[in-house]
């Protein structure tokens, strides 16, 4: 499965790894670049359509998704594409 077809790709989708703390957005899609990565994220609720808020970017990326706080390494954050146009704070 190369991409998630259920949600249309957005031109403005940016990698979670480059977003600043405080940024709010919606998950546009999760890249399936490493086996199991997208599944493990999906199991935590990180799926297309989920609202997220970046809490911290160093030393790892910490974000809130659906009232859950999740910490990931930068490589994982880079696989999460976030649409920030719809909601901006």
């Amino acid at each position, binding site marked *: 499965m190369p991409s998630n077809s*259920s949600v249309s790709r957005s031109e403005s989708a940016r990698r979670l790894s480059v977003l600043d703390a405080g940024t709010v957005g919606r998950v546009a899609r999760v890249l399936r670049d*490493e086996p*199991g*990565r997208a*599944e*493990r*994220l*999906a*199991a*935590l*609720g990180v*799926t297309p*359509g*989920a609202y997220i808020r970046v*809490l*911290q970017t*160093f*030393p*790892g990326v*910490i974000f809130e998704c*659906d*009232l*859950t*706080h*999740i*910490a*990931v*390494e930068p*490589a*994982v954050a880079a696989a999460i594409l976030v649409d920030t146009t719809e909601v901006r704070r």
Partner: protein
Amino acid sequence: MACCTVPTPDPVMSDVLTVRARPLRVALVGNPNVGKSVIFGHLTGRYATVSNFPGTTVGITRGRALVGAEVCDIVDTPGVNTLQGTVSEDEAITRRLLQGEQADLIVQVVDTRNLRRGLMLTAQLVPIGKPMVLALNMIDEARAHGVDVDSGGLAARLGIPVVETVAVEGRGLEALRGALAAARVPQVPIEAVRDPLRWGHEMATRFRRIHARPSARFEEWVGRAVREPVTAIPLLAVVLYAVYVFVGVFGAQTLVALLEGGLFGRYINPAAIALSERFLPWLWLRDLLVGQYGLITMGLTYAIAIVLPVVTTFFLAFGFLEDSGYLPRLAIFSDRTFRAMGLNGRAVLPMVLGLGCDTMATMTTRILTTPKERLIAIVLLALGIPCSAQLATIMGILGGISFWAVLTLFGVVLLQMFLVGYIAGRILPGDRSDFILELPPIRMPRLRNLLIKTRMRIWWYLGEAVPLFLVGTLLLYGLDRTGGLAWIIVALRPVVTGMLGLPADVAQVFVMGFLRRDYGAAGLFQLAQHGRLTGVQAVVALTVMTLFVPCIANFLMIVKERGLRVATAILAFITPVAVLTGAALNHALQFLRVTF
């Protein structure tokens, strides 16, 4: 406020509560850290370990509960985030249980704040085709966060009872008991089964309202303080110091002195010796029980008088940290370092546990994802993590010499661990897994849970570790009787005196160090007290002892977890590393003319 919404009374489902050949089996299922074990405890009156981080339950726990007039088997399962595709070992346990004959009825426990994730799992539970009840747990925390759920609407939509609970306070659990009789197979459209993630998302959007958040609460403030580097690093130092004072000083010194010097030194051991001299005519049996390597005078004394107080205080301190949700935060800061060693930040949990007892920590490496990660973590634990008892002895000896001596020892040990991890991460086959960790909310630990958990762990220690102590003592007794011990000491002499520049009697201490590393350190403590060791010798000897072979209990645990072949290989690797590091340190200190 705990409300139970049951669709319509259904006479068919009362069939669930009829006479049957075996008790009805009710499985508690849900995402990790949603409170399944708390509900299990309330329903059955049995305690399953409860902590505030995902992955506390890694096996199945069973208990009985009275529901209406019927006795049911309640099954607590490891948390699952998904039932589809590749799952971790603990998730596989739950999946097998649900698909087999072992569950007649499913109670899905959901953290109400994470309703969306919970419903994604609901959709995956539907195809199993078993009657279900949905428990919306932690409804109070959800409301405090501005989350409202239309449980009536949800019950009508799913066609199953939906019960609101606050399990830690026992609220809603009677309603949950009552709802079991009305359990039924959820009615969901086929799309839900085809795309559970999308369906869960849509359902949550429909039945959940998130209002503007109330102003930041104390827990959130603490949560921020322990995750942002500027505040988190000083806080870590404070936490480490507090744990050291409670476990290293109060437990390892004050309580040990009371039990070892008082209870065992004055009463139990003299009484045991007097009794055996009076009633046991055979010298070998007397030696076996109360001799130098006696089961009572050594095995039991060490297990009860020296280690028990230390592990008890450690379990209390560690349980407090577990329930507060603090420990997973440490993973954020250590992730980069661990990644260089073929691990990821999750490995910080067994490493921290190792400071309490390397044996127990070796078991907790089960939370790591890949076999390679587990192996590296087990090696690092065996190599460099001193247990609390040993840590206290180290501080006792080196603290009396100089602060630089303490710093040298820990600097060398940490550097060595990093080097070994770095090399192992590169040469061992296999992969490390991504660092993806759910951070539990910061909470004030509940005293009741802390006390029950500590009591359970002490029983575990007494049941698991004490027999290992006795086996170890028997082994030493056997070696001593056959002359093997003396032979080993002679054989070690060239290394001890030649390479490490230590007095010959330290060889004996190293042999004792295999029984328990802190026992060996205690032997060094005596030598140092009698002025037999210089500062450099004390640092070199303790460095070797810390890096040296794990204690027998830890070794047997490695055998249990990884097999005898791997355990022997680890031993064969660690021993020369420890000695060579000690020799290099000895020569470096001599060359630099350091005296401490």
